[in-house]
C-alpha cells in the first residue's frame, strides 16, 4: 500500500489524463448535482462528493450509440459495412465499490458467456479503474447487504481510501503498480496500511442505522425469488405501482438490456444503433405478429427482480445482480425501488398482508 496526499490527487488524474479520456464524479456547474461525467480537466474530479446520480455504466455501455454504418450503392449494388470507430482508452476515477461491482457484473455477462459482446469489449479494453472506498454510507446505500461494498475487493487498477488528509493507495494490477511507481508514491507504513481495514469496519458499522429489515432481508429474498415461492399477488402489488418508465433499468449499474435499431441516413446510407432498453416495457418482449409472451406488467416486473436477485442470474454475474447502490429507489415514480420490493416479499414471507 502507498500514500497519496489528498492535494496530490490532481497528479494522479493528470497522469491518467495524458493517455485516457478522464471520467469521474464531478459537480454539475449549474445544478450542483454530482454526475459521473467526462471531466473537463484533471482537477475537476472530486472524490469527496457523494456517489454520482448516474451509474458509470454509460461509459462502457452508452445510453445510445452507433455501432456500425452501412452504405449501399444503388447502381453497382455494392454494400460497405463499416464498424464504428474504435473507442479511445478511458480512465474511470473515483468509482464507488458498488459501481465497480456493477461494472464487473457487466464484464462477466457481456464478455464471459458463450459469446463476447464485441462492442462492449471495445469500450472496456484499455480502461484504467481507480476505485474509492466509501468511508461512510450515503442515505440510499445498502451495499453491505449485497456484498458489494463499502470497499472494493477486485477489479480496480488502483483503490483509494480516505484516511483524512491522505489516501491509502492499494494496487490491483500491474498497470496500477506502474502508475504508483511513476508518481513516486511513498510506501505506507504498516500502521497506516492497517487504517484501510479500520475505515471499512467503521463504515460497515454505520450501515446498521440505515440498512434495516427490508435491505437486510435481501439474501432471503434471493432464496424466495430463486425458488419461485412468491405468490402472484406480490408481483401484482408491485406491478400496480409500476409506471413503466424504464428508469430502474437505466440507473442500475448492472442492467444491460439493450435494443438495436437501424436508421436511414439518406440515400443508400443507414446506421445501426443500440440503446438502453428495459424489461418493464410492454413492447420489449413483443414478437413480430400478434404475440406478446410477457404482456402483464407484473410479469415484466417479475422478470427484472428475477434478474437482480435470483441465483440462476447470479451465476452469470458471479454475484447477485443488485449491487446495493440504491439508485432505483430515487428514480422510481412508483416507489418500488428494490428495497421496497424486498419489503413486499418479506411481508408475504412473514405472512402479513402485502397490501397497505
Amino acid at each position, binding site marked *: 500500500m502507498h500514500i497519496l496526499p489528498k492535494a496530490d490527487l490532481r497528479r494522479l488524474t493528470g497522469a491518467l489524463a495524458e493517455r485516457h479520456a478522464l471520467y469521474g464524479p464531478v459537480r454539475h456547474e449549474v445544478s450542483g448535482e454530482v454526475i459521473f461525467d467526462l471531466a473537463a480537466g484533471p482537477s475537476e474530479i472530486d472524490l469527496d462528493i457523494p456517489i454520482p446520480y448516474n451509474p458509470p455504466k454509460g461509459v462502457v455501455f452508452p445510453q445510445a450509440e452507433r455501432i456500425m454504418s452501412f452504405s449501399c450503392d444503388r447502381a453497382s449494388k455494392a454494400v460497405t*459495412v463499416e464498424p464504428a470507430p474504435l473507442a479511445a482508452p478511458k480512465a474511470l476515477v473515483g468509482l464507488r465499490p458498488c459501481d465497480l461491482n456493477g461494472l464487473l457484473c457487466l464484464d462477466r455477462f457481456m464478455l464471459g458467456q458463450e*459469446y463476447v459482446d464485441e*462492442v462492449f469489449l471495445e469500450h472496456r479494453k484499455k480502461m484504467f479503474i481507480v476505485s474509492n472506498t466509501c468511508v461512510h454510507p450515503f442515505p440510499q446505500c445498502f451495499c453491505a447487504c449485497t456484498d458489494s461494498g463499502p470497499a472494493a475487493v477486485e477489479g480496480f487498477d488502483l483503490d483509494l481510501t480516505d484516511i483524512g488528509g491522505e489516501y491509502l493507495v492499494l494496487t490491483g494490477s500491474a498497470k496500477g503498480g506502474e502508475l504508483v511507481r511513476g508518481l513516486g508514491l511513498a510506501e505506507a507504513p504498516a500502521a497506516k496500511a492497517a487504517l484501510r481495514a479500520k475505515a471499512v469496519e467503521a463504515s460497515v458499522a454505520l450501515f446498521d442505522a440505515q440498512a434495516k429489515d427490508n435491505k437486510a432481508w435481501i439474501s432471503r429474498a434471493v432464496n424466495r425469488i430463486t425458488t419461485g415461492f412468491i405468490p402472484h399477488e406480490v408481483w401484482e402489488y408491485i406491478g400496480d405501482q409500476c409506471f413503466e418508465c424504464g428508469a430502474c433499468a437505466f440507473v442500475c449499474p448492472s442492467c444491460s438490456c439493450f435494443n438495436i435499431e437501424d436508421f436511414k441516413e439518406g440515400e443508400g446510407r443507414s446506421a445501426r444503433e443500440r440503446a438502453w432498453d428495459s424489461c418493464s416495457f410492454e413492447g420489449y418482449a*413483443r414478437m413480430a405478429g400478434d404475440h406478446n409472451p410477457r404482456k402483464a406488467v407484473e410479469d415484466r416486473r417479475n422478470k427484472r427482480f428475477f434478474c437482480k436477485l435470483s441465483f440462476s442470474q447470479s451465476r452469470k454475474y458471479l454475484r447477485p445482480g443488485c449491487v446495493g447502490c440504491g439508485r432505483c429507489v430515487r428514480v422510481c415514480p412508483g416507489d418500488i425501488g428494490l428495497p421496497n420490493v424486498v419489503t413486499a416479499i418479506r411481508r408475504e414471507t412473514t405472512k402479513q398482508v402485502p397490501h397497505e
Partner: protein
Amino acid sequence: MSETGSKAIVTVPAVAVIDEIRDEIEDVKTFYFSFEDPDVARSFRVRSGQFIMCTVFGAGEFAVSLPFSPENDRPHLSVRQVGKVTRALHELRPGDKIGVRGPFGNGFPFEDIKGKNVIYVAGGIGLIPLRSSIVHVLQHRKDFGRILLIYGSKTAKELMYRYMIDEWRKTEGFETYFTIDNPEPGWDGHVGFVHTLVAPASIPVKETVAFVCGPPLMFNAVIKELNKAGLKDEAIVSTLERHMKCGIGKCQHCAIGRTLVCTDGPVYTYKQIKTLGEQI
C-alpha cells in the same frame, strides 16, 4: 472487431448476394443467397435448427430460422412478410445484398435421435424451421425408423413447400398426412385442425421423437394429442420464436423463464418448455 468464440459471425454482418427468389405461398418467399467473401462462405457452417440474423440494409435486422440442411443444400431463407424489415426483404431482387450474422442457437438434437421414429408436426409456415431436419433425416433414411409428416394450414394454398414435399415423398416410407382447416373445392383430403390428424396417423410411441412447430394454439392442441397417444414431454421437440435482437445472449429481448432463446434455444423439448413458466 473480429470473430471470437464460435465460428459464428457475431457482430458485423457478412454481406451475401441474393441469387434467386422463389415465391412460395402468399406473403412467403424463399431467398437463395451466397456470401460475397469466399472465406466466409467456406467457414459458414450451420446445424439444423439454428437461426441467423438477417440485415436488410436500410431497413433493419430480424431473426430467421434456417430451412436449409447442413449437407448438400443451397443456403436460403424462407420468410413471411410480417413487419417493416421483412416487407423490405420482400422488395429485394436477385443481385441485391443482405447481411448475415450467425448461425446462432443450439440446433436439433440429431445425435440423440438416431435409430428412432421421427414425427414432424407443422402448422402453416411452421414447416420452415423443420425443413432442414426433414431433409437431413430423409438423406439418412436408413438411420431412422418410421418418418411421418403431419402438416396442415388454413387453406390448401397456404401449405408450404408442396413441390418439395412431392420430392420427399419419393423417399421410401416417408408417410405424409395433410389437412386444411375448412373444406374447399378441389381438396379431397382431411379437413380439420392439425391435431385432429394425430390420431388417424396412428403414430409410433416407443423410440420416437416428435418435432412440433406452429402457432401457439395449434402447438398446444398438438401436444395434448401427442401426450394422449403416449408420447412423453421429453420426446417432443420444438423451436421457439422470440423477439431476438442481438442473437448472442446479450440484449435479453428473447429471455424466457431462466433461459435465452437465442443461446439456450431456440430448440427446446416440451419438458423444458413447461419449466420456463411463461406462455410460449
